[in-house]
């Protein structure tokens, strides 16, 4: 789908100046924070902010693999159902097979990794559109989630798993701290490690990387597997928090992911992206949601607003990419 996937070529007049610069997402998020702090008294308190950041940190795991893939110009639409899949599998392993939480999560990740590898293989070997294939995977996994979860109604996950997830170090959840540490480490790796930097190269110009001996297809395949595994992990954490597998976990996560990554500077054309900024993108979206709820904006209106933001972000992406060409 060459024409549809890249959009039509832009003519000279459309290459206007529209570059956000690398720090835009930081400014935007800060501005939002300041605005909400000033206008809503309920915003600037520890519990509220902690809750926002906690939600971000759980979803963050799903955006790790997503960011890797978007840097390489691929889209993984199955992150949402993989997220829920983590909870589903945990439910099965803990309830039916009486496994404890830890091994259950690990096993779930392995299974997810295999699914990711298969998608990655098909996409790279047959040069398929990653969005369509992962939508198929999303459908299948979503169906599976629904199927299994309806059979598990009423059964909760082991109590220790919830308390484990909700553990805090000092006053802050360990999940948040983990996110911060992982985000920083990955950011450093993306800048300094050859294994991570090559993702930018592949996203920039896959043919060039192949010319110089980089195994572009293998890198992509591995990232599809990683994306599936980490989404599953994040979903497992979230499920522990809500005590039992639930079909709403991870719903519509794909749209959140794309929006967060793109306003965080990634481009759907590949070659750009940053882990820390994807995280900030998520923070922006969740803060916005929190703020909109504080303003008593209907949740469906919120959905419309987020959809519009996605479209605007993509338009900006096109402008920025055209300007560079």
């Amino acid at each position: 789908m060459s024409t549809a996937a890249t959009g039509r070529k832009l003519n000279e007049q459309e290459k206007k100046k529209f570059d956000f610069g690398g720090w835009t997402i930081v400014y935007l998020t800060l501005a939002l924070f300041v605005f909400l702090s000033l206008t809503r008294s309920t915003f600037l308190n520890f519990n509220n902010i902690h809750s926002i950041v906690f939600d971000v940190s759980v979803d963050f795991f799903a955006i790790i693999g997503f960011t890797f893939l978007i840097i390489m110009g691929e889209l993984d639409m199955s992150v949402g159902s993989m997220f829920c899949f983590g909870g589903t599998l945990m439910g099965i392993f803990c309830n039916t097979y009486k496994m404890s939480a830890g091994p259950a999560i690990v096993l779930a990740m392995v299974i997810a990794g295999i699914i990711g590898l298969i998608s990655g293989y098909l996409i790279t070997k047959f040069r398929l559109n990653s969005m369509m294939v992962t939508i198929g995977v999303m459908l299948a996994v979503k169906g599976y989630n629904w199927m299994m979860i309806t059979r598990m109604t009423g059964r909760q996950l082991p109590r220790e798993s919830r308390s484990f997830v909700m553990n805090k170090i000092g006053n802050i959840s360990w999940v948040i701290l983990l996110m911060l540490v992982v985000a920083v480490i990955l950011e450093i790796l993306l800048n300094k490690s050859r294994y991570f930097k090559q993702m930018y190269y592949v996203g920039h110009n896959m043919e060039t990387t192949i010319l110089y001996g980089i195994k572009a297809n293998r890198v992509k395949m591995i990232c599809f597997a990683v994306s599936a595994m980490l989404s599953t992990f994040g979903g497992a954490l979230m499920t522990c928090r809500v005590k039992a597998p639930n079909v709403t976990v991870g719903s519509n996560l794909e749209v959140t992911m794309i929006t967060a990554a793109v306003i965080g500077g990634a481009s759907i054309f590949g070659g750009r992206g940053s882990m820390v900024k994807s995280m900030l993108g998520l923070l922006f979206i969740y803060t916005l949601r929190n703020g909109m709820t504080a303003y008593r904006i209907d949740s469906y209106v919120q959905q419309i607003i987020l959809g519009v933001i996605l479209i605007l972000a993509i338009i900006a992406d096109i402008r920025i990419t055209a300007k560079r060409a």
Partner: protein
Amino acid sequence: MSGKNTEYLKINNITKAYGVVKALTDVSFSIRQGEIHTILGENGAGKSTLVKIIMGEETPDSGTISLDGEQVKTFTPSAAQAMGVRMVHQELAVFENMTVAENIYPSHDFKKGGRIDYKELYKETAKQLERFGLKTVRPEEQMGGVTLAGQQMIEIIRCIVANPKVIILDEPTSGLNDEEADRLMEILERLKAEGMTIIYISHRLKEIMRISDRVTIMRDGQYVTTLQNDDSLTESDLINNMVGRDLTLHSIKNPQDVINNKEVVFEVKNLAKAHALNPSDLQLHKGEILGIFGLEGSGVTKLSRMMYGLERKDSGDIYVKGEKLNKLTPKNMVDKHVMYLNNNRKVAGLLLDMPVTDNVSLPILGKVSNKLGFINSKELKRISTEYIKKFAIALPSLSTKPRKLSGGNQQKVMMSACLAPEPEVVIVNEPTRGIDVGAKEEIHKFLLEIAKKGVGVIVFSSELPELMRLSDRIKIMRDNTIVGEVECSEFTEQTLMRYAAVGASGKGAGV
């Protein structure tokens, strides 16, 4: 009509430059009404650019074009078509999912009461197919199933049924065999008899001699001369004008330095692919520069890419230092210290929007990173700086992105990336395409230098002087086959061009 217009299509002082590269400089000549006018020249002579301008696909920097007294005001394809100019491009613009009839009459709807009358469409198409001798093609047939020759003919028919004043044909026989090319010649002669004005671009001297009324020769973006195709015109006249320049240009290599008896570092055996490459062999010796020359459509690009595993082959093996490569992929080549310099840096070979250091690091990621995979930026900077100095690349800083550099400097960055892993064999494809003279010099000097140090170099190029300067031997390709080999002691442009355009035995392609 007041007799034939001798200045029917007038080209006046056309100049066009792409950055520093002067594609056309002050080109002026005219084409007579009802003649077959050939434009002849090597790759890079400016023919394509000129016809693109005539066709409205490019705008000239200065100069005018006028057709039948009317000057061209805007340069767009629709304007050109409205004026009555049609072109059959070298890269066919066909619709393989549509029928032959629909390809011939895409916008002519044969409407009968608001709907397309297929009977009429097929009838008219059948008439045209018959007129042009395409007996085995049916109007309802899908275009995808037609041979390349047939597709080419059909695209020509599409142009002709639009009743243009001028038709431009860009290398129309490049995919055709002798018989098919023959038929095309007959059709063109018939069209001329019917009054059509035809601009013909081709390398094939025998064809040119057969059908042209006049031949305009271009060289290095400039107009050279227009020759009348009467009895006194010979192929040598054409070749001499094509290559011109320094008729006594010899190789700068000393025949005694020719290194033919050193070890074979790279060997190609029986490399072939149906319809793309006939079985080809070659051997590269240590420290040797092997040149491979061919005009457009001769198969050089396919050979170079198949050699490196960038495209699939049907058969053949590659041996690096005597060892057969069991899987032909670029990664395996890089591991064996064979590097490839791509011919089109805009498509592949560079990361245009990433720093120069990242570009250089691509094939040496292992070399510049430690066991954990962390890139040693100091080491990378050192290597990059080394090559920047060697090539005298004008860089504001190491993190400059190649997109901001001139063509010559971009090419040098690409070379740096290729040479950073200190390869033993380098396959170089059009190393100096589209760059200024100064950068050209530097790259040539460097290639000679590394050859002296023992690196084997294969140079694919369409520029004869370049090859003659660099190579110890030159192989020539035509029609997807290697047709000859010349030692440096016997280099003359005429010999090489003759091989490429005509063939040693005098049998040209086409007719």
